[in-house]
């Protein structure tokens, strides 16, 4: 299994440009997530999905959009890039643990996409 893969690894955008960050997982996980991590900080949840066709906002969704047409793919779209979106973006996936308590599912992370907006 490749696990969670993300493309591209690095990208430089100009202000106002758009791009899509790709995320694919081959573990048949229902749950997928997008996080951003600013230098020296923890991860902030942007969007998440509990299955194909179902997405919901995290704590910092403004300026981003997502879609989930298949179990495997969860692309993140940046419209009108701004310098404040300069960050490292991580995609993750997990599956719900049968009978588990809150937070028992393990999240598997991709290698990240380093985005710079100039």
């Amino acid at each position, binding site marked *: 299994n490749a696990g969670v893969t993300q493309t591209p690894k690095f990208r430089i955008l100009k202000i106002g440009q758009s791009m899509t960050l790709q995320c694919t997982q081959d573990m048949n996980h229902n*749950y997928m997530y997008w996080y951003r991590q600013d230098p020296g900080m*923890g991860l902030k949840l942007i969007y*998440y999905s509990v299955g194909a066709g179902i997405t919901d906002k995290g704590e910092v969704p403004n300026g981003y959009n997502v879609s989930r047409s298949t179990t495997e793919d969860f692309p993140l779209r940046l419209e009108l890039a701004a310098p404040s979106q300069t960050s490292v973006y991580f995609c993750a996936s997990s599956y719900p643990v049968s009978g588990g*308590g*809150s*937070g*028992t*599912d393990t999240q*598997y992370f991709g290698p*990240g996409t380093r985005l710079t907006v100039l």
Partner: protein
Amino acid sequence: LAKTTQPISMDSYEGQEVNITCSHNNIATNDYITWYQQFPSQGPRFIIQGYKTKVTNEVASLFIPADRKSSTLSLPRVSLSDTAVYYCLLPREGSTLGRLYFGRGTQLTVWP
């Protein structure tokens, strides 16, 4: 609102045991406590998870007292390669499974 509190940084030397304590005074009855590790330029990686008492795996041990208001991650005999950020995580309040809250974590630096 942060649900966990842990030291910003810790230093240790190779071969020592490292204990990182996390406070979570408002932990909910069903919440599990999870620890992740993150190396520079990589995504976080699951280390260990527990609900109460003690959990041990090949990487670390997790100690949780009876009141569950804190937990301690124990790394035996650390090496230089254990230098990383360690996150103590609880589920987000009112969240569905998997919506974990990542704070700033603890930067552990291991010296030779």
